[in-house]
Every structure is written in C-alpha cells, then in structure tokens.
C-alpha cells in the first residue's frame, strides 16, 4: 500500500473502473486505487453513500486519499461523502480539480512513488496544463 490512495469517481461505473485500469498500467502492482461510479441501482449518476464507502475503505488502507471526479454531481456528492466522514478522517481526504483520465494517471504514478496527498493532488492538477497535441 502507498501512503496516498487515489479514488476515482465517475457517473459511470465502467468509466471509473476503466480509468483505474488505465492508470494502473503506469503503476503495476499498485493496490491503492479505488473506483466508484453509478447510482446504487446501477444507473448513470453518483451516490454519496457509495463514495463514502470507498473513502472509508481507502482510508483503512492508506494514510490519505485524493479524489478525482468527472462531472457536476460527482463533485457535489464527493463533498457530501467527505462531510459524512468523522472529523479525523475528513482531514485525510482532498479533492483534485483535474481532468479525470490524465489527472488519474498523474495521481496514481505519483502515489505509487509514495508521495503524500498534497503532492499527489498537485501532480493531478498539472494535467490541466498538459497538451495532447504538441
């Protein structure tokens, strides 16, 4: 386990798991990435209790967690999921304002190098300035 967990939140369970799969290609052997997506009845959307569950699990294994999110309600429900945590756990979670795919890859690579959450979040947010086409 690395110090920092990366938690991927998407409206789509498949998208969350796909982002996790893609990021782990760059950090083989990492077991500190969680993917959570969809509503509790399997539809498209996000669920604060499901995100809360993933955060509790991640924080049971790692010291800190950085969350990456796709669209609108993913952010709103992540905020609520963090508020649902005990105060002590809340201090150990932060959100990265980053594009999901590139951000997750940067975050996972950084976390696999045993970075703390502030550095993981900063690395993820660097994805906002990356060019796909030079």
């Amino acid at each position, binding site marked *: 386990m690395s110090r920092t967990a990366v938690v991927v939140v998407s409206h789509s369970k498949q998208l969350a798991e796909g982002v996790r799969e893609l990021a782990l290609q760059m950090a083989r052997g990492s077991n500190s990435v969680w993917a959570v997506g969809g*509503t*509790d009845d399997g*539809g*498209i*959307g*996000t*669920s*604060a*209790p499901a995100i809360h569950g993933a955060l509790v699990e991640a924080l049971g294994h790692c010291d800190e967690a950085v969350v990456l999110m796709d*669209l*609108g*309600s993913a952010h*709103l*429900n992540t*905020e*609520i999921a963090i508020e649902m945590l005990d105060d002590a756990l809340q201090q150990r979670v932060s959100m990265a304002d980053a594009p999901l795919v590139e951000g997750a890859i940067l975050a996972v690579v950084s976390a696999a190098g045993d970075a703390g959450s502030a550095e993981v979040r900063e690395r993820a947010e660097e994805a906002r300035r990356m060019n796909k086409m030079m």
Partner: protein
Amino acid sequence: MPGAHAVSTFVERFAAAVDAHAQELTELDSAIGDADHGINLQRGMRAAVERLPAGGAAPDAILRAVATALISKTGGASGPLYGTAFLRASQAVAGCGSLEAADVARMFRAALDGIRERGKAEPGDKTMVDAFTPAVDALEAGIARGDDLRTALRAAAQAAGAGSDATIPLVARKGRASYLGERSREHRDPGSRSTTLLFEAAAEALPA
C-alpha cells in the same frame, strides 16, 4: 401555525407533484441536460416519503429524513442540492415543535443558502437558484409586511414561477446545460421548474 403534520404533508405534496410532473421535468432536462431530472427527483422523493418518521416526530426530524433520502437515492445533482436544502432547513428549525411564519421564512432562507454554497450558482446562471431566490425574497417580504403565511407562501410560489420563466432566455453558466453554451437559450431550466413545484407544495400544505 404549521406543526409536524403540516411539514409531512408538504413533503408528500412535493413528492406527488414531482410524480405528476416527472415526465415534464425529464423532457425539460432532455433539451439541455442529461434527461434525468424527473426520474432522479422522483426516485429521491419517493424514498423520502417512505422514510417519513412516524407521527410525533418534530419538523426538523422530518426534514432531516427527507435530506438523507434525497442524498442517498437521487443520483444526479438534484440529490446533493435538494438534500443540502432540506438538511439546512432542518437545522434552521431544530427544537421547534411548530413553526411560526418567521420560522418558515428562516427555514427557506437557510435552504437557499445551502443550495448556493453547495452548487456555487449565482442568480442568472440558469439554475434552480433563479426560482428559489425570488421565492424566498417574496416570502420574507410578505411576512415582514404582516401577510399571513398562506398569502406569503402563495406569493413565494408565484415568484418562483416567474423566476423559472425568466430562465428561458438565459445561457446556462452552471450545471450540465452549461456544456451546451448558446444552445441552452430558449429552454426553461428544469431545476427552476421543480423548485416552483416545491413552493407550490409549501403554499398548499404548510399554512394548514
């Protein structure tokens, strides 16, 4: 003076209105969003009605149960937004066995503040805030000049409807519709419509 029974009836009326208008809300959302507002809010409010506490619960406990149901069952942005609104409403009337008109105004103001903090939307962004803000302003103004609660809540519902109408020419700056840019113009914001239903339900049920 609305007691716990009136608050429960308000929740049931809002849920019934969302049921009756679910298709309309989803059609509005399919024009400029992800076509799930009606179905999401319907799922959330049905769960809220199922979880209403038994008789004897105080207004804040009823509102908190609605918040929990909306947050856990809704799925889209309306879950965290309306969920936060009901949670803040609950906190605003904690300890009240029945609600004076001023309590009702404080409750809806707290709900609006919660929505704005959660969603970071300003008036004019083409969101539910565009209906919620004039409704709370009208409610407070009515109570300040001595109107009874029924009259003030009716004015609030009318102001919500007018605020919702005023979203039609706007370009969305928040929410999924903002991805459409100019193409979001000439459509009503779905959240402003459900907010109008909320104040209509309040006007019917709370003064009883």
